[in-house]
């Protein structure tokens, strides 16, 4: 058997391949994005980017209903979007095996919250598996598909950043074709009108009972007896690795992999056999609460933090009282290095203009969220995908109704607009909002690493595809004032905003368009430099926050390696000191 070195996400893709999946869908979101990107490399699996997670899950449910093995993947907050179909899918069940991957982000490396999606399994009443390394990630896709088909249920497959983005050695195998199961029309199973749903609700209850029995015998739920029976640790997912790192075989470990339904007898027997039991888990006391509800005495969150990522280090301190004293300490305060908008990023100029205007800016999720940080600091709110337009609408209405004046501008990216901004815009049109809505269209899903979306004209395999026109969509839902500008043309952006301010017949849309500066071969070309004679050190250009513009001593310079020649700084300099210095 061949051994390869895969990330958890690559391993999940490999699992989809080996265990006969033929349909896969997703919307990109860190840390889940590479699952579908890697699945798309296998020609045996049809794969597609969906406009959002709800659509992705529904399309996957359709493929499963047709009899195909299917997988859908998303980040934790994506499952909130897909929650509507999820809860009822638990009732209908499946035909071909259906796996729903939720990649959670404890510590919020690249997310707006750190919700623990294990809670979805008991809430939606579907079984859940949690891999703890890449080998398990691959193997458990096969187990999940098997469970899905055996028990007629979607299966939640929950990973976290450290499983999805860590590499470990994986033994890979050959693809086993699963073909397509016959489809037999059965509305009592697949059409959830109340009369049918009530019957399915009872079936769901029976199913969970059967699944609990299965969990007791599921080989990936296992006890690893250690040298001593004094201490027992119950754990799952990545936390298992930290437990083994800290304790090796000093303690006995109950490693849970099917974490819903829990193998209650197995847990009770384990607690019985060891003196003291700890539950080690990241984020919520998910296991702990259920184990306590069984009447068992365990310790967990009283010792182990429920906020942020866990690590061997935290565990060592919490359970052993060993605090590491590092040999070396930084001898000075270290200036932070947060992510920044790239040199030449088309979003920069738009936020620069907005800052001058002193508008209330409700924004959204994407690279442009960075407009909240200095020096641009133009954003008032960021909540969830699509919220910019609807929150702006509510803000504006509340002000109007209470006799307050407010200029409200909403900022949303192209991919986010197609994900869930269209319905919000419809709300603004239908309920006559006077908001100004800017779609910062960089023609790609940039933040997650440049994935296509329904507006780019290409599909996941880089084949030409139909392209949704943003302006046509806006007009079709009733926006009459649609303006299109070049994001690099600051005056055009400013004029468009002014025009939109004068327009009082409903919401305006400004599409500020320029491809992402990082898109290979499509970004700007050129080089600018600051003339030492003309520069009067007014520091206006620094307000753009372009990483290519640097202060050295008392001079201001453009770093020729970083500058991509977008010319935005040229338009900001009041003394014409920034000049073209090259074409490359």
């Amino acid at each position, binding site marked *: 058997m061949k051994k390869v070195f895969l990330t958890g996400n690559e391993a999940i893709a490999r699992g989809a391949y080996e265990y006969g999946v033929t349909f896969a869908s997703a919307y990109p979101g*860190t840390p889940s994005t590479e699952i579908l990107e890697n699945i798309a490399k296998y020609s045996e699996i049809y794969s597609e980017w969906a406009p959002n997670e709800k659509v992705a899950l529904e399309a996957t449910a359709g493929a499963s209903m047709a009899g195909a093995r299917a997988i859908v993947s998303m980040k934790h907050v994506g499952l909130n979007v897909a929650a509507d179909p999820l809860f009822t899918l638990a009732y209908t069940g499946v035909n071909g095996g259906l796996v729903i991957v939720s990649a959670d982000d404890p510590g919020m490396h690249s997310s707006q919250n750190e919700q623990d999606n294990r809670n979805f399994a008991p809430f939606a009443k579907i079984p859940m598996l949690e891999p703890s390394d890449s080998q398990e990630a691959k193997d458990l896709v096969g187990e999940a598909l098997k469970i899905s088909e055996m028990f007629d249920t979607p299966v939640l497959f929950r990973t976290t950043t450290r499983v999805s983005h860590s590499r470990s050695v994986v033994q890979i195998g050959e693809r086993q074709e699963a073909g397509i199961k016959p489809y037999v029309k059965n509305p009592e199973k697949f059409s959830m009108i109340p009369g049918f749903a009530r019957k399915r609700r009872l079936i769901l209850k029976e199913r969970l009972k059967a699944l609990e029995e299965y969990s007791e015998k599921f080989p990936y739920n296992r006890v690893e007896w250690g040298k001593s029976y004094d201490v027992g640790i119950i754990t799952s997912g990545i936390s298992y690795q930290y437990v083994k*790192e800290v304790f090796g075989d000093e303690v006995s470990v109950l490693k849970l992999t099917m974490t819903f339904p829990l193998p209650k007898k197995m847990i009770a027997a384990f607690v019985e056999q060891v003196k003291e039991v700890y539950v080690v888990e990241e984020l919520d006391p998910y296991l702990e609460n259920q184990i306590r509800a069984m009447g068992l005495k365990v310790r967990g969150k009283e010792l182990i933090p429920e906020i942020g990522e866990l690590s061997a280090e935290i565990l060592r301190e919490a359970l052993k009282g060993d605090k590491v004293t590092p040999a070396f300490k930084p001898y000075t305060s270290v*200036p932070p290095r947060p992510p920044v908008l790239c040199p030449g990023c088309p979003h920069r100029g738009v936020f620069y203009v907005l800052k001058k205007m002193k508008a209330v800016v409700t924004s959204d999720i994407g690279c442009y969220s960075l407009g909240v940080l200095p020096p641009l600091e133009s954003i008032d709110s960021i909540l969830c995908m699509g919220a910019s337009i609807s929150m702006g609408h509510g803000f504006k209405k509340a002000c109007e109704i209470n006799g307050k004046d407010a200029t409200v501008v909403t900022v949303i990216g192209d991919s986010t607009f197609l994900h869930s901004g269209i319905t919000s815009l419809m709300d603004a049109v239908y309920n006559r909002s006077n908001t100004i809505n800017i779609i910062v269209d960089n023609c790609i899903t940039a933040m997650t*690493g440049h994935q296509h979306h329904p507006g780019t004209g290409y599909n996941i395999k880089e084949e030409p595809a139909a392209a949704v026109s943003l302006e046509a969509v806006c007009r079709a839902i009733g926006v009459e004032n649609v303006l299109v500008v070049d994001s690099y043309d600051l005056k055009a952006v400013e004029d468009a905003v002014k025009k939109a301010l004068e327009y009082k017949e409903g919401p305006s849309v400004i599409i500020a368009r320029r491809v992402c500066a990082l898109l290979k071969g499509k970004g700007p070309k050129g080089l600018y430099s600051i003339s030492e004679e003309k520069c009067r050190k007014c520091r206006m250009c620094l307000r753009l926050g372009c990483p290519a513009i640097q202060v050295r001593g008392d001079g201001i310079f453009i770093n020729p390696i970083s500058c991509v020649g977008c010319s935005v700084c040229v338009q900001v300099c009041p003394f014409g000191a920034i000049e073209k210095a090259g074409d490359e």
Partner: protein
Amino acid sequence: MSVKSIFISGVGGQGTILAGKVITTALVNQGYDVKMSEVHGMAQRGGSVITQIRYGDRVYSPLIEKGGADVLLAFEKLEAVRYIEYLSSEGTLIVNDLEMPPASVLTGKEEYPPDIVPRLKSEIKNTIVVDAVSIARECGEVRAQNMVLVGVLARVMDWSKQSFIKVIKDVVPARYVQLNINAFERGWELGG
């Protein structure tokens, strides 16, 4: 063999991910159990980035604990100071003699700490300072700085040179192979 840990820090876009890939592929080929952790997403936009590598007979945690790194390989000076707590007391610091000022320094709000190299050298006895950018430029491409640093690391860790050259041939696009091998070898010489 007990587990060894290599902590790599740098700035998004410097090629730390490819460096991690070359190192771990070589270690896997040598039959070790290996784990590597990296973070994607927002961090790519010029932010501080880290890659953690652990290898041995059996590796559990993909993360390195403070004071647990046998080597801290810093692609930039500030990123050496930022993660210095991870280096073990007997560990080796390999630091690229490169200054990439973060936004707060570029805009004059904060100062880039002066004298990083002499201070690190005086505190950490095993410190290797490498001007990887100049060496890479001599090899023909500034971006090959990552392979120069991998070369230094490979020598410090006493890894097989040939196994790395093979991996570079496997993972680097054909037209950059020779350039990267040259960069690796220049680093290798410095690691002795």
